[in-house]
């Protein structure tokens, strides 16, 4: 059965997506376990896949026994297996977390929600695993459609956000498809490995260049690279908590993943870097995005919106790593994909916790009672915030570390400065929340600092409002996991990411 | 070298329907024009040798999508400012 892993992972999710509504039709309470089982199974399979790839090397799977370039191929290589593990681990944690959240926010739509979520993950895994460009497009659209649907069931303005995302996403996907058309015109193949073989001989043909530019533009839209990020803040803000916890950590990273595939695997890395100024454009856009996202995040009053803008900035980091186009940059980008997936996922889980208990996540309304009421949630939030800022033993530091190293190697001092500066900006907008939670006295007892009895300011009668275990455990797992990931990052880098670097880089 | 004959004529027609569909202020008229557009594009597909794409477009684009468009309009509004 091992050799079927590349197809089994998306297939498990697809079957889950299809069986969940059937189970739900049978009895509503069956739906959630069905969804959970399938994602846990897929998650287990993805870890098995990673293990197999590390032991035996890349696995190629030919659909229906048709050998590429005629048939469709699924490839489980180090990068792909790493990405599936990231996607499905975050997905599984969010699924565990979201039972109560969904019950609370979308009681009517529980069954479709989980079904569509599984479809979303099917799409993501399909994108990661497929070795066929058109197949990739199809999965890109499957995941996007699922994402539109998930976003649209959120707050009141969510359909508008989803509609905009739909329009922009369709433009992006169509650009991607158009680019594929140009490549296909010249190479006559859609298999990534096959096209990569053919490309060097035809690389100077205009259609190839046009195709590459179109593809990169399309992907930039999908990954919300500045200035194509317009759809993102609204979409993430208005989506239901569970939905944004699922889409925000992974959605844009998938675009980045495809960009890595295209620039470094499909094309020769040196071509992407030297012949066309594409990578330097990506670098500058990323830098602008980091700055813009950070500054906008500082101005937000709503926690979710702040996180959304922070995503714009963080995508800049990944884009920067890709754009620098050296091994360290790639390692940094892929590692940041992992770290940011965990951090953002965790942060949105915290938002879910807050919304479940408080009914809002508006920063100016936070005060000290929150710390008493939800100590564990806030503790995880603190860890995640530290990781976002990039304080050393946490995971967030290390991806920045590699990125800074890569930027220095490239002598791109603007990028170095921007990474460092944005750490500070990130600190500003995360500590703003922490300060409210840990320091700010609840508004009534007032500001009169001196002379008041300190004991009165501490609302000792605040009853605990901590969320229940199914929500708390994933939050804590991610919070603690960030430290573990940080300490173990060498293992990840040497064992997995070093094998990710394509030969030409 | 490819010599286009019929296709070019059809494409020009297609382009004009597309522009009309975007220009007309009455959304129902626009949608019906879009149906014509889809049907013409089905013809283009057939002319280019893609028979199956052609009749899929005829069924889906000109048929189902137009019906869905009309229903959507029925439920919302026909009026448009641009």
């Amino acid at each position, binding site marked *: 059965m091992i050799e079927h892993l590349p197809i089994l992972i998306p297939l498990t999710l697809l079957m889950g997506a299809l069986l969940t509504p059937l189970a739900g039709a049978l009895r509503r309470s069956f739906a959630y376990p069905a969804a959970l089982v399938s994602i846990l199974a897929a998650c287990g399979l993805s870890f098995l896949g990673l293990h197999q790839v590390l032991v035996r090397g890349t696995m190629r799977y030919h659909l229906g026994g048709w050998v590429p370039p005629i048939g469709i191929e699924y490839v489980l290589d180090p990068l792909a297996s790493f990405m599936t593990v990231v996607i499905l681990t975050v997905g599984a944690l969010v699924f565990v977390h979201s039972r109560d959240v969904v019950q609370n926010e979308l009681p009517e739509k529980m069954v479709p929600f989980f079904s569509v979520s599984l479809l979303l993950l099917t799409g993501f895994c399909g994108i990661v695993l497929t070795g066929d460009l058109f197949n990739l497009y199809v999965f890109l659209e499957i995941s996007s459609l699922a994402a539109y649907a998930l976003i649209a069931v959120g707050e009141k303005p969510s359909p508008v956000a989803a509609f905009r995302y739909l329009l922009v996403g369709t433009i992006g996907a169509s650009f991607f498809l158009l680019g594929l058309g140009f490549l296909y015109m010249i190479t006559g193949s859609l298999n990534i490995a096959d096209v990569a073989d053919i490309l060097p001989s035809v690389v100077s043909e205009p259609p190839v260049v046009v195709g590459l530019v179109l593809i990169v533009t399309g992907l930039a839209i999908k990954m919300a690279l500045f200035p194509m990020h317009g759809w993102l803040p609204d979409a993430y803000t208005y989506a239901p908590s569970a939905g944004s916890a699922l889409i925000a950590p992974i959605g844009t990273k998938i675009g980045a993943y495809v960009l890595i595939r295209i620039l470094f695997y499909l094309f020769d890395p040196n071509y992407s870097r030297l012949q066309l100024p594409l990578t330097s454009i990506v670098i500058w856009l990323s830098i602008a995005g980091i700055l813009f996202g950070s500054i906008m995040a500082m101005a937000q009053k709503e926690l979710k919106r702040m996180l959304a803008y922070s995503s714009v900035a963080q995508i800049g980091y990944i884009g920067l790593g890709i754009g620098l186009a050296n091994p360290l940059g790639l390692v940094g980008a892929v590692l940041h994909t992992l770290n940011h997936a965990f951090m953002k996922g965790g942060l949105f889980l915290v938002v879910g916790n807050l919304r479940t208990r408080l009914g809002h996540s508006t920063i100016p309304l936070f005060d000290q009672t929150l710390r008493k009421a939800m100590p564990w949630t806030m503790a995880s939030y603190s860890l995640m915030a530290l990781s976002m800022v990039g*304080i050393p033993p946490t995971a967030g*530091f290390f991806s920045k570390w590699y990125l800074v190293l890569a930027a220095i190697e490239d002598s791109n001092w603007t990028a170095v400065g921007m990474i460092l500066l944005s750490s500070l900006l990130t600190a500003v907008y995360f500590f703003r929340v922490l300060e409210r939670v840990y320091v700010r006295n609840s508004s009534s007892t007032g500001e009169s*600092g001196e002379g008041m009895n300190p004991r009165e*300011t501490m609302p000792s009668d605040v009853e605990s409002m901590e969320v229940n275990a199914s929500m708390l455990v994933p939050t804590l797992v991610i919070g603690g996991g960030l430290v573990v990931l940080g300490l173990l990052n*060498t293992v990840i880098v040497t064992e997995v990411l070093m094998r990710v670097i394509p030969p030409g880089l | 070298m490819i010599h286009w004959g019929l296709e070019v004529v059809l494409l020009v027609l297609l382009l004009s329907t597309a522009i009309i569909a975007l220009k007309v202020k009455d959304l129902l008229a626009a949608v019906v024009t879009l149906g014509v557009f889809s049907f013409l594009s089905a013809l283009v597909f057939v002319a280019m040798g893609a028979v199956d794409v052609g009749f899929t477009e005829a069924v889906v684009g000109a048929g189902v999508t137009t019906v869905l468009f009309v229903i959507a309009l029925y439920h919302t509004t026909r009026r448009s400012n641009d």
Partner: protein
Amino acid sequence: MAELYTSYIPFFAVAISLLAVPFILLSSRKRNLREFWTIIASLGKFGLVLSLLPDALAHRVAQVELLQISPGIGLALRADPLGVFFALIASGLWVFTSFYSIGYMRGLAEHKQTRYFASFAVCLSATMGIAFSANILTFLTFYEMLTLATYPLVIHKETPEAISAGRKYLLYTLSAGVLLIGATAWTYNVAGSLDFRAGGLLNDVSLPAGTATGLFILFLCGVGVKAAIMPLHSWLPTAMAAPTPVSALLHAVAVVKAGVFGVMRVVGFVFGPNVMIAFGLNDLLGILAGLTIVVASLLALREDNLKRRLAYSTVGHLSYIVLGAALLSPSGFTGGLMHIATHATMKITLFFCAGAIYVNVHKENISELDGIGKAMPWTMGAFTVGAIGLAGVPPVNGFVSKWFLGAGTLESGNVGALLILLVSGLLNAGYFFPIIHKAFFKNSTRFEKYGEASKLMVLPLVATAILSVLFGLWPNLFLRLYDLSTSIAMSVLGGTAR
């Protein structure tokens, strides 16, 4: 060359107070038990560090690599003489601070004492980590940890003033941390290694002048914020909003000392004397330090708030240490190192005194202290010892370090530095003696009804004052700090012309 051996003692020395944190948090309702954990941890930590001393003196260096945190770079701890030196001072003074804090916190019935003691323990862990770091990345990790653990202490009072002080503190220190990250990455890019090495990690690397200067400025900004070198010092007086034991910790034990310790590491173990001299970096550092000494002393003269005056005094004295490093002569380096220890004991005494006064009579301004010496003779006696020590009067230990610093200036032929030392000695006297004068020789009936502060506070401050005198008489007493510092100075400067 020093002999390396693997030992987990440095790790335990770092971890012990961290391990105490959960216990402190868990026993938040039982005060005595909670304080018991703090005391145990502080004593245990001091004992562990002390056990490393003989090996450090015998040039046997304990080291342990916990795990790789980046390919080729481990989270490694190494108890080299410099590390042991700093760890001894910090852990030793933590013992005093612990006792004193208990008295202070209870005396004022402060809120959130659990958080206070827990943060304090974390702070000390971070300080030990800084002391024992074997490479820049480990140093950086603990440095950031120290920043964050100090933040709750700075904002402890939670008044708007304290909160804004906390913000300022975070802004300065986090920016510094970020610059340090940049500097670290650049060093790694240039040298391919991050291990601290006596004589300079960059010693064997051929550097373009721009790179060397740029790197040095980055490093200087990185560690200079905590070391309060002049343009970067302004967070320190503001942070006086914190409770007094915290100020003591900030100023005497952990935070600023971590900064100057960082300067020592950077000068002696990253750049090394050869590189420093080759690019004139020592002059840059020396000029900055000299300016800081003079300006800070002048600013201290103006301050009426006792703690703020002490804060500016700290700013000045930290730069003595930096100046000692910048001189790059054996005596100067030794003097700088000694000043870490001597300033720590003296300044902690002074802060303890300020805190005791505040707890007892709730006065913070110098102009209100007329005649307090009669009410609190022990406290003010200790204060006097600390003050004259900082002014450089024998037999208090401040004299010893200043003596070596002065010798260092002569060794390197730097007359300007000598002049600065002399002037600042006078200025020191200028801002301390009025306090003593007011306390003992001005008559006021204001404090008649007050007696001494509680024993838990008076005993530690008297003890540190006595220590200051003892170290002044016998610099090599107990901890053999003198031997340690000379051996460090030799290992760093052994390979240079001077």
